């Protein structure tokens, strides 16, 4: 579709771009004590863009901007996750970031990048949109200037990220050389009509998986994550653990189902490999390595942010696990889990942000006796952590049921068993935080003051965590219409 008629499919992105430019100017005109309005207006802009995204659900699947992007319902779902998660992050940050308001604009630009990542259909767009998200993330990670941890985190982040982008782009250059195309769909057609040299193709795929795996913290490429998560300001840690990861998964799913495999006939339900080497086996091994590493290293963490970092590696492993089945059910389970994961992870992070700020430390030992000093926060943190473990009747349980069901239906029994064993390991370190909060006595007994705002936000995230554990069909419906990429 040509550029002019594509614009009607591009309204959320255009609106967000316009909002960014307007907010940059508004920010200049505000006085120092009014700067918080930039944050409030950014949240409002994101909420309006959520409405524009909802209106895209009715649109048919179309290639827009001459095949650079694609408008389909998976893109809509990932955009929705990105916009909502950024809104929550801005609401997280409002009490803490009030003067340096460019923070909010950087988050908006990163969200725009995630919108593009959700809809990429071309090698060029994959590289550009991942960099757009990345560049903003580096700046946000180092946002608390003069804090040595934050500086170190952002330097490590940019050096690892730049390397992985370079490696991924090198893989893409070979893919381009084998097919002469940059559009993913055209690459697929070229690969099917004119099969490439298998060894070269495999090298290209591995190089690209390194770049994409970096983005979603797959195991051999995870080493940046714990340091970045610990050093970054806590709201940014929460931001990095959901939005960019969801967008990275979307790019990876799109890449796998176009370049690595192609749909059998016209059906979406099964895919045939373009490659003789068994890519699902490779992904299965990486998934097991990812979750086992995340869970076992998390066992001996004493810092709560680092614990959440390893927990997010483990959760990436669960989601990669469902990719091995290469059918609509597996990808659908991933999208469903992403929605659930966003809610419970943000809930846990909200309590951690508000409590570490008041306790003045992000060590787990600082949470001693929190169950008596601030019962509401402690009980809700316990619920979010149990939901992350996957205990019934919470939302995390349902998410994991769908992940494991898709893996078992695909016949990967050992993989499912290893996944369940990993969930059991994760119970230990999540329950340890709960034990510290309720069973250990605090050195000081006075209550931790919680604001009404904190309580309201925690309740807003707690309600869906409890509700989706028993009544999840709305989310299921939302995600099931999201996997009709080929209609």
């Amino acid at each position, binding site marked *: 579709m040509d550029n002019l008629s594509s614009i009607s499919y591009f309204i959320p992105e255009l609106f967000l771009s316009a909002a960014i430019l307007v907010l940059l100017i508004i920010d200049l005109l505000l006085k120092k004590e009014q700067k918080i309005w930039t944050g409030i207006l950014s949240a409002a802009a994101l909420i309006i863009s959520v409405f524009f995204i909802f209106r895209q659900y009715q649109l048919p699947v179309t290639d827009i901007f001459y095949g650079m992007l694609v408008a389909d319902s998976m893109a809509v779902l990932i955009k929705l996750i990105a916009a909502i998660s950024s809104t929550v992050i801005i609401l997280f940050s409002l009490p803490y970031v009030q003067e340096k308001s460019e923070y909010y604009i950087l988050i908006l630009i990163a969200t725009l990048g995630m919108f593009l990542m959700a809809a990429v259909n071309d*090698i*060029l767009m994959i*590289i*550009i949109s991942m*960099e757009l998200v990345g*560049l903003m993330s*580096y*700046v946000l990670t*180092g946002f608390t*200037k*003069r804090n*040595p*941890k934050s*500086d*170190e*985190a*952002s*330097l*490590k982040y*940019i*050096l690892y990220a*730049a*390397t992985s*982008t*370079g*490696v991924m*782009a*090198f893989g*893409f*250059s*070979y893919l*381009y*050389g084998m097919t*002469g*195309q*940059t559009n993913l769909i055209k690459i697929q057609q070229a690969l099917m009509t004119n099969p490439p040299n298998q060894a070269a193709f495999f090298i290209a795929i591995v190089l690209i998986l390194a770049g994409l795996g970096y983005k979603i913290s797959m195991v051999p490429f995870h080493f940046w994550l*714990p*340091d970045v998560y*610990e*050093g970054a300001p806590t709201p940014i840690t929460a931001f990095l653990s959901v939005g960019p990861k969801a967008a990275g998964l979307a790019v990876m799913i799109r890449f796998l189902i176009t370049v690595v495999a192609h749909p059998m006939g016209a059906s979406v339900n099964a895919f045939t490999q373009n490659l003789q080497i068994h890519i699902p086996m490779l992904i299965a091994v990486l998934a097991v390595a990812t979750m086992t590493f995340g869970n076992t*290293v998390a066992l*001996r*963490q004493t810092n709560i942010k*680092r614990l959440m970092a390893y927990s997010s590696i483990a959760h990436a492993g669960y989601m990669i696990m469902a990719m091995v089945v290469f059918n609509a059910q597996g990808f659908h389970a991933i999208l469903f889990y992403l929605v659930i994961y966003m809610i419970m992870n943000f809930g846990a992070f909200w309590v951690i942000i508000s409590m570490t700020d008041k306790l003045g430390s992000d060590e787990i030992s600082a949470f001693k006796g929190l169950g008596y000093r601030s019962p509401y926060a402690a009980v809700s943190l316990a619920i979010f952590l149990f939901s992350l473990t996957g205990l019934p009747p919470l939302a995390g349980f349902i998410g994991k049921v769908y992940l494991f069901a898709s893996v078992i239906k695909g016949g990967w029994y050992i993989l499912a068993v290893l996944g369940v064993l990993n969930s059991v390991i994760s119970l230990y370190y999540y329950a340890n935080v709960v034990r510290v909060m309720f069973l250990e006595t605090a050195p000081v007994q006075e209550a931790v003051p919680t604001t009404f705002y904190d309580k309201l936000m925690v309740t807003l995230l707690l309600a869906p965590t409890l509700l989706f554990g028993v009544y999840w069909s709305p989310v299921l419906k939302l995600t099931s219409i999201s996997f009709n990429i080929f209609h």
Partner: protein
Amino acid sequence: MNTLMPYLIIGAIVFTLGIFTIIYKKNAVGILMGVELVLNSVNINFIAFAKFVDKGINGQVVAIFIIILAAAEAAIALAIILNIYRTKATVDVTELNEMKN
């Protein structure tokens, strides 16, 4: 040089040199130079393939965008390195070890 191979070999050599620079350099600016080498090897590949395989301009457009990305990345990385130099008076990445498990 009217065949594809010499360009690919040069691209692969530059890529390998870049990766080795990234692995062995301790100076943050040196690592950044390694990243530039990697990105430029990507450009060599894309332009060579555009001339010999695609016979169009897709690859050249990608190369131009990668040049821009490399510039943006270098700008941000140098700003971060400068910031670290102000607080710690070093750009040696092995001395940045505030966080350990």
